[in-house]
């Protein structure tokens, strides 16, 4: 009735259910449901696997033959070599170390332990399936390879990609592309050579690939420990009135203007000129003007250019409104660019939901701490 494999999973299911019940009764933390769901999910998964095993009769054509179990399999226990005891021990060690050291190692240990347990179970089951070791190996492979290969492949790829990303993040911005090109070229050349030399021994190819992968992973590990290069990550736009009202050095981001929409088609270019005056240029007129007209209620793309020889920022006053019913006055927060270096530029996207008529203090662009450097914004 029940096959060997399904018995195994029945046991697992029962264990998980019991654990879930025990856990639910005994534990009273506020995050209890997380672990509870995990155990219930495990029970469902195990019972699902049990169902499959039952359904497919352990993938064993002769599974129902009584003599198969009495004359051969169980009676002739001939366990082969197994790596899972030592992997399991490693997992246990990691768990212990993790308890003392850091949670990451603890979690890794649990994962290793579970993998070892599962593989061990499947291996023992398969070794008892028949008296024919070759067949036993083949059914283990048939069951486990569809799991093992994708998982190992994904893990391997993830490790390599992660290592590579650590290397790229460690290198300076200038060296990065060069290294990228060199490694890419090496891989291409290597692949080409392997492909064109069909007579090359498999062991040679595997050896070279392993050395390359190990090199990549170890370099990545070293560089990960050493840390990433210093990267400037600052907000491009500030809404802090104290920041916006001075040209004090807080941060600089030379790439602030590189949002997608900034590359073309701006509604207005606001220019802080060498004469320390602020001007605006809009499409259709080459002229510098002191009044900008921006449409209402749509995101208006605006470019700020600093043509002076000092680092300044552009501040936008977004108006002050009075509620006619209550008479309360609300000031929209100002917005401003980061400090833009001489000859620098930055992009802003502005939206004025109400017309200029509604604001008691006019909308305007200004450069803080520079007398008279303002441009009025008209929103019809």
């Amino acid at each position, binding site marked *: 009735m029940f096959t060997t494999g399904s018995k195994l999973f029945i046991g697992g299911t029962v264990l998980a259910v019991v654990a879930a019940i025990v856990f639910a009764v005994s534990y009273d933390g506020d995050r209890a449901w997380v672990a509870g769901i995990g155990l219930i999910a495990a029970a469902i998964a195990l019972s699902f696997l049990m169902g499959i095993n039952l359904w497919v009769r352990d993938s064993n054509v002769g599974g129902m033959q009584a003599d198969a179990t009495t004359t051969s399999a169980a009676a002739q226990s001939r366990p082969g070599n197994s790596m899972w005891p030592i992997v399991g021990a490693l997992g246990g060690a990691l768990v212990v170390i993790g308890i003392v050291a850091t949670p990451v190692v603890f979690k890794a240990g649990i994962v290793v332990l579970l993998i070892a347990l599962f593989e061990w179970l499947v291996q023992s089951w398969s070794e008892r399936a028949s008296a024919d070791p070759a067949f036993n190996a083949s059914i283990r492979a048939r069951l486990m390879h569809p799991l093992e290969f994708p998982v190992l492949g994904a893990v391997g790829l993830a490790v390599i990609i992660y290592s590579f990303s650590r290397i790229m993040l460690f290198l300076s911005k200038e060296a990065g592309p060069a290294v990228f090109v060199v490694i890419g070229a090496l891989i291409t050349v290597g692949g080409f050579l392997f492909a064109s030399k069909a007579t090359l021994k498999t062991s040679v190819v595997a050896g070279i690939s392993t050395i390359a992968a190990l090199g990549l992973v170890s370099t990545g590990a070293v560089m990960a420990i050493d840390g990433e290069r210093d990267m400037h990550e600052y907000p491009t736009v500030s809404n802090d009135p104290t920041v916006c009202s001075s040209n004090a050095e807080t941060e600089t981001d030379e790439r602030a203007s590189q949002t997608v929409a900034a590359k073309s088609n701006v509604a207005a270019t606001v220019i802080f000129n060498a004469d320390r005056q602020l001007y605006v240029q809009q*499409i259709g007129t080459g002229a510098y003007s002191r*009044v900008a007209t921006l449409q209402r*209620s749509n995101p208006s793309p605006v470019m700020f250019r600093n043509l002076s020889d000092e680092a300044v920022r552009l501040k936008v006053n977004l108006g002050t409104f009075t509620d006619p019913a209550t008479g309360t006055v609300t000031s929209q927060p100002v917005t401003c660019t980061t400090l833009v270096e001489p000859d620098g530029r930055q992009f802003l996207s502005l939206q004025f939901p*109400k*017309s200029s008529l509604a604001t008691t203090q006019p909308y305007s662009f200004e450069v803080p701490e520079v007398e008279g450097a303002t441009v009025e914004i008209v929103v019809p």
Partner: protein
Amino acid sequence: MSRRDTRLPARRRRTLGAVVAGAAALVLGGCAQDAPQDTWQPAGDNAQKIHDLQWPVFLVAGVIGVIVLAVVAFAVVRFRDRGQPMPEQSHGKPALEIALTILPALILVGVGIPTVSTVFDLAEEADTECIINVTGQQWWWEYDYPVQDGCGGISAPIVTSGQLVIPADTNVLLRLTSRDVIHSFWIPKLNGKKDTVPGRVHTLRMQADEPGIYAGQCTEFCGLSHANMKMEAVALFPADFQTWVANQLEDYQAPAEGSLAAEGEATFTANCAYCHQVNGLTTTAPDGSVTPVLANPDEFVVSGAAPNLTNLMTRNTFAGATWDLLTEECRDRVWNAPPEEFGERYLAGVSADCLNEVDLREWIRNAPAKKPMYATADQAANSGGKFRGMPALGLNESQIDQIIAYLLERH
């Protein structure tokens, strides 16, 4: 002065081209009487440039087409099975193949060079004399005229919709953008189309040789009422355009005390002014303080805008230029006016006699029933309670009478 000098040769070239183009049009088909959006009847420089480029291409394509079809027809008739022996099993003649590959390549070089130069010509912005901002939203266009020295001088911003009024014989540059989805601005007789994309400002040149009304249509699919998003460009002689500008900037004139229109003003303020701005409209509080009435469409409409109705009756259309404000008879009088008289007739605006009250009344009564929009309460639930278009306001007939009387004075 200089403008007129530079235009003369262009005109002559155009007359010359028109003869050939006319002949070509007869052959190829594409020219009709009175089709308002005909792409083959340019009425301005830019459309003319496109036309000068396209008709030879149509001609060449047509000739090639006729040749190919004739050869196929000949082959089909000549080489039909009449019991002749099996033909020679020839796999082709490389020399002929190469010749027939190079020939179309040469023709395409001939087409490509003027194409590229026209592309850059039409992107020129340096000769702009007049700037107008055009903003698309579901499902109407807003036109605003920033303060500028060009256009005969505009001293205060003008916001209008329904009809784009431009001075004739002047290089106008439209700055196009959108408040919600992508639309496309197209007045076929004046220029090709250009999409309006939120977050981007595109430019489109406009120039009309003669005064008149030029029809257009949104050509980028923009949702439910895409078919009802029309536009009309109105070209006026520069002097007439001055008059129009002055008219738009006139101070608000409150309706006479006690008139139906005065009741309309109150009804309008209470029901319409949430979204529709009328410049100069004020409200007097019980304590006698006067405050301007400011529309806040951003609080009620997804696009954050509703047409400015300050000078509604100077326009001939409403609701995204879908319906005429003029009765059919009065409309024809304006549309078919000779160029010299056009300005006068257009500037007369909409009088009580000429008002197309039927459509306007239906619109005010229940707009979503007249034009498909997402403007009912449950449809608005999806967009945070904001409408996409004008909702039904639940006004009774006498309120509608009042509003129409009030609007009739918005000249």
